């Protein structure tokens, strides 16, 4: 019998290739892990539709499990319910901040199609809320770019989704 807890802890070691401080567990991408005899079924919810990290993550999961001797692995992609940044763990948000990326605010607070909204995003370096949006789209699909008006540094913000 395969120990599901063991699988979960191995998944903790699979990182987002674009934000390598976050594991796929931190991101809240893993919906379920089920096992039957020698088979492992992992259900993943993709973050952004076009995110190139998705294919890499699926491959990294396979490699990690194969490395530990597991052979029969099935990875299922589940689109609904759609992934949201609210599923990111508190620990994950702290890791992001320590890495220099402002973590997402709760979705209820700010996640609409309304224009010119100002979101209070805290600078991950100096903790100031005196910041401004440079661009809603950043270096990867999940990020926007901000500037801190106090310490003058530009920084990435993991945008609410």
């Amino acid at each position, binding site marked *: 019998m395969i120990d599901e807890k063991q699988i979960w802890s191995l998944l903790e070691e699979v990182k987002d290739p674009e934000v390598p401080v976050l594991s796929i567990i931190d991101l809240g991408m893993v919906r379920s892990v089920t096992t039957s005899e020698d088979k492992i079924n992992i259900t993943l919810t*993709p973050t*952004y*539709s*076009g*995110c*190139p990290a998705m294919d890499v993550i699926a491959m990294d999961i396979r490699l990690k499990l194969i490395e530990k001797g597991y052979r029969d692995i099935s990875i299922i992609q*589940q*689109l*609904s*319910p*759609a*992934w*949201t940044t609210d599923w990111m763990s508190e620990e994950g948000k702290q890791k992001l901040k320590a890495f220099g990326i402002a973590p997402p605010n709760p979705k209820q607070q700010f*996640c*609409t*199609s*309304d*224009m*010119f909204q100002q979101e209070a995003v805290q600078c991950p370096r100096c903790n100031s809320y005196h910041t401004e949006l*440079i*661009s*809603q*789209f*950043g*270096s990867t*699909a999940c990020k926007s*770019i901000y500037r801190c008006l106090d310490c003058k540094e530009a920084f990435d913000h993991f*945008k609410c*989704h």
Partner: protein
Amino acid sequence: MSTNSFVYTLHLADNTLILAQRNAEWTGHGPVLEQDIAITNISLDLLGQARNFYQYAALQYNSFSAEEKKDVDKYIPRLWKEYNRELQEDDLAFLRDEHQYLNLLITELPKGDWAQTVVRQFFFSTYQFYLYQQLESYRDEQLAAISEKSIKEVAYHLRWSSEWVIRLGNGTEESGKRIKNALNDQWMFTGEMFVSAPYELIDTTSLKSDWQKKIEIIFSEATIEVPQQTWMQSGGKQGRHTEHLGYLLTEMQYLQRAYPNAQW
């Protein structure tokens, strides 16, 4: 599962793929770095949506009976038939000919200047936003799931393009002139969105009033008048395209045609 559902899925996929390709033409050519990144991120989101739709279309086709396959044969790439394997997303994206594409004409228009790109994105994102809202609760679970996921991305595209319409409209004399030109050039391609083709599972005529309302709000913020009644061009949903699509496909399909079955 019906053949209509397959054709409709192709139509949704083609819309997003063709606009993704057009927006990707800005890669390295955006007016400033941040906006170069923004438009290519939008392109990537659309490409991701296209992949989900094409994967679903291929899945539907592979489970069809021989008779159903015959029904939709005119959309199936000839080259693939020599491959002797199941249909895959890339076959649908890269091996079909012009007349087999069912995208809206507005998605294939040249990228033009920044105003042309922004206005097209605004028209299309508004349309997508209301369409996906309907599809989210549609009885086909996979189409509903793709829409539920995609609408979050579309909300960002809509916000971004609305802001740019307003910014250009209230900007300089030059930006105002360009956005008016873009509006006038593209207006006749908007009517096609709301004339449903027989295969469409959502009645798109019902989306028109919401769309029109949003367009009027944003353009009035941009101090630009929206054109009234005018003659509308259609044909994309039936596979009758502008001359621009052929050039786009030639570039996009080059690799798969020169090196069939090439893998990245």
